[in-house]
């Protein structure tokens, strides 16, 4: 049944494009309903819903889907972020035909991402990744302006490199294991520990995923792509696409296929710490609202990777929690940037100031998003960072735990700069006539802010069950 999560968005795209009168008007409402349904579906407890018959397409390319708690967290994030992105299209894309196309592409991307979250074999995983990647190229270049095309082009180039590496890795795995199913490869890899080809395959795969996640030595494409993309596309990309295409797949491959080794842990920790700190430092100097958020995204992915790098259940649970929190606060902040851009026509934070009075909702929600990102309690981001830090500490990586804790001060610093330059200051006479952004940007922002506060207060209540549910993932 979980295949519905992939099939429904695909078929909705087909139906929406049937030559029927008035059907195009349903696109927005339908897509919103789908995103809400997806969030609701995550809470279906029935185990049968989440399994489908394996080996539907012969023996080599097994086509398996299944979901554990990690997949469910991801599916929920997809629903949440696409909900916000869909709302953002209403104010940021004025042309109704364009908006219709945009919504269609979002739906395709959602289908692709759901596939990634559910896939249990390495080849269909790859296919879904490509579906997601190609739809994001189009979303970035949607306005066909020079920057958008440049950003999309950079993304295509690096994503292409990642694809080649990943395919090579898959080929090596198939060569050795004779199958693409996670379980089979996992079983085979356990017995061939020191094989050169296997190490090569693992290496290729991990580097490909580093590129896709935009981690620090491989991040060149990310700020350009995020900044140049239309506002709604940035929300989707930063909130969930790269987290899935890179981070989620990395976690999935690590826990279900290749399992942790000390070498992998140390690489992850190093890359994670580098990204968390260097990207935060880079964010300090940005003057473009969205660019600052992009670097912040890289830095937060660094945190997630640090959690993964601890190699413990606790660390993975913390990483998953941070993926969720990041989806909430980063979508929120990109919505805020869209609101400011819409009303001011600029993204340069040096030109802004004192907007809190004109845009109270945007200002308040951005404070909540920023503080959550900086890990200030009682907001949601605090808990995930705390779990990651505790996981690192308990796993014996104390230096990395200290880096992770102190990175928060950098995060807080750039967000305070942002707040000071944009919202928190004397009302500027120049912006006297600026009004709050429309309902379609403030409404999802309020929902996300409420979610961040709610999650901040209620995380302790669910934390135990949440962490326990991750024990089963390590079963294999």
């Amino acid at each position, binding site marked *: 049944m979980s295949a519905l999560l992939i099939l429904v968005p695909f078929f909705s795209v087909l139906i929406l494009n049937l030559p029927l009168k008035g059907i195009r008007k349903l696109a927005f409402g339908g897509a919103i309903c789908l995103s809400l349904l997806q969030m609701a579906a995550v809470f279906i407890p029935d185990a049968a819903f989440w399994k489908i018959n394996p080996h539907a397409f012969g023996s080599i390319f097994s086509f398996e889907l299944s979901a554990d708690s990690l997949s469910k967290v991801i599916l929920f994030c997809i629903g949440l972020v696409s909900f916000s992105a869909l709302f953002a299209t209403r104010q940021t894309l004025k042309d109704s035909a364009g908006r219709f196309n945009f919504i269609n592409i979002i739906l395709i991307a959602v289908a692709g991402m759901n596939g990634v979250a559910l896939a249990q074999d390495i080849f269909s995983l790859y296919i879904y990744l490509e579906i997601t990647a190609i739809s994001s190229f189009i979303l970035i270049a949607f306005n066909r302006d020079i920057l958008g095309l440049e950003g999309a082009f950079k993304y295509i180039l690096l994503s292409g490199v990642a694809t080649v590496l990943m395919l090579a890795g898959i080929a090596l795995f198939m060569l050795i294991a004779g199958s693409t199913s996670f379980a089979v490869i996992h079983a085979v890899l356990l017995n061939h520990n020191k094989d050169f080809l296997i190490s090569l395959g693992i290496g290729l795969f991990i580097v490909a995923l580093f590129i896709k996640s935009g981690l620090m030595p491989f991040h060149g494409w990310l700020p350009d792509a995020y900044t140049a993309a239309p506002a709604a596309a940035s929300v989707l990309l930063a909130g969930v696409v790269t987290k899935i295409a890179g981070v989620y797949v990395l976690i999935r491959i690590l826990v279900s296929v290749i399992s942790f080794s000390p070498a992998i842990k140390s690489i992850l920790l190093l890359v994670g710490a580098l990204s968390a700190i260097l990207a935060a430092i880079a964010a300090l100097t940005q003057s473009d609202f969205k660019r600052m958020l992009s670097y912040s995204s890289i830095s937060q992915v660094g945190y997630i990777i640090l959690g993964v790098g601890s190699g413990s259940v606790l660390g993975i649970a913390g990483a998953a929690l941070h993926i969720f929190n990041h989806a909430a606060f980063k979508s929120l902040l990109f919505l805020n940037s869209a609101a400011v851009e819409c009303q001011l026509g600029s993204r340069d934070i040096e030109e802004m100031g*004192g907007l809190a009075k004109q845009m109270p909702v945007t200002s308040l929600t951005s404070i909540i998003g920023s503080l959550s990102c900086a890990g200030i309690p009682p907001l949601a981001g605090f808990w995930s960072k705390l779990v990651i830090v505790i996981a690192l500490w308990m796993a014996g990586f104390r230096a990395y735990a200290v880096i992770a804790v102190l990175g928060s001060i950098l995060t807080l610093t750039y967000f305070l700069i942002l707040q000071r330059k944009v919202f928190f200051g004397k009302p500027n006479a120049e912006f006297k006539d600026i009004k709050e952004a429309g309902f379609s940007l403030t409404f999802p922002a309020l929902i996300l802010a409420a979610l961040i506060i709610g999650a901040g207060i209620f995380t302790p209540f669910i*934390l135990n069950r949440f962490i326990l549910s991750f024990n089963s993932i390590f079963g294999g």
Partner: protein
Amino acid sequence: MNYSTLVLGIIFIPVIGAFCLPWVAKFSGRLRNILSFVFILSSFILSLKLIPFVLSGKTILIQQPFALGLNFTLLADNLAVFMACISSLISAVIVLYSFSYVSHYENQNEYYCMVTLFLGSMMGLVFSANLILMYIFWEITAITSWRLIGFFRDKPYVLKADKAFLVTVFGSLIMLIGFISIYQQTGSFDLPVIKEVLKTQGNISNLVVALILVGILSKSATLPFHTWLPDAGVAPSPVTALLHAAVLVKIGVYVYARIFIVNITPDVLWHTLLPLIAGLSAIVSAGAALIETDLKRIIAYSTISQIGFIFFGLAIGNEIAVLGALLFILMHGLAKAGLFLCAGIVEQNTKTKDITKLGGLISTMPFTAIAFLACAFSVMGIPPFGGFFSKYLVFSGALASGRLWVVLIFLIGAFLTIIYLFRVFNMVFLGKVNVAGKEASPVMVASVVSLALLSLAAGFLIYYPYKFAQGAVGQMLGVIK
């Protein structure tokens, strides 16, 4: 009423109430102000109701376990209730004063919301017996103080607000590392559990103590993390009084008492090192107060200097010194809040904070001048004001422990206090009239006069706070009376 409910009420009436205030303001700004006062007052009254119970030696423990030891654990003992009473009393007077002070500024909704939230989270911090819970409330106070320091929204002010936020968060993050390492050693964030485990398991390392001290010192604005406090003087005066004199800076001191006196015994080394840091802090900032010309900065430096005395008393750690330190928290809170509020009146009515431009205000603002003098006497430690007893006890405790040379440092500090406070009084209230001013609104004058009277009363009626603090010390040090 059930005592546990009382404790929860003390914390959550202001915390939840704070977020109702902006909505109430849609109907009436006056109602919002009064409600804010009522919320804070109710915390005070409920804290008072706990006194008989805790004085009888009993404690209230509320526990709700969560994963990873992130439990919701509240503990009401003598020390907590003592601190809660002081903080909420002073906050109530300050909010009363704010009615008039902020009435003609913008962003009043945010102001009252943040002040009430601040008091609520302060109460939460006072009662929390779990390190992470403490940390959470600790950071909420940092958020509120960030917004409140930036109240006037001018760019330099916002910069200083950011600075205060960053310095205190930096400290608390370092402290968090210390907490996590305690967690690894003892398997719990709950202070009572940690205490039990450490009894059998030996002590925590000096590094951990140092990490936690960084957080404590940065919050209590002690050398070398003190620079944010004088800068934070750009906030409205009631805010400086509330956050940076009476309540917020006492968080660090309180947490020191809570962690290192009640639950964990740090190495002997700290009994020597910490008084030294505190002594340096007291002297250096007293020196700064001597040469500053900005009225509020002088009082802020004076706060840093007096906090040094409190740390001194706590670090000495014997019964008399700790007793003195606790009374010092009360006396200094009352008197310093009074000084800041007087400074606010002077500032608002003369439009300047520069003491070289002021003078002779005693003729136009007699009540303010006398209240200022009374509070200054208390801070200096002149009998019969309350400040005398606390300072005396700290010194006699230190002498009893035989640390003569540190006592000498602090004697110099106490002497400097007298000089700089007289200097301020002289330049602002005596001499030739330079800037005309008039007495402030009755509510504001009533607030400062009541703080001055409270300082005096605390001296005359020293028996009651003394008894209370003695009970707290007995419980803290495990002395059975």
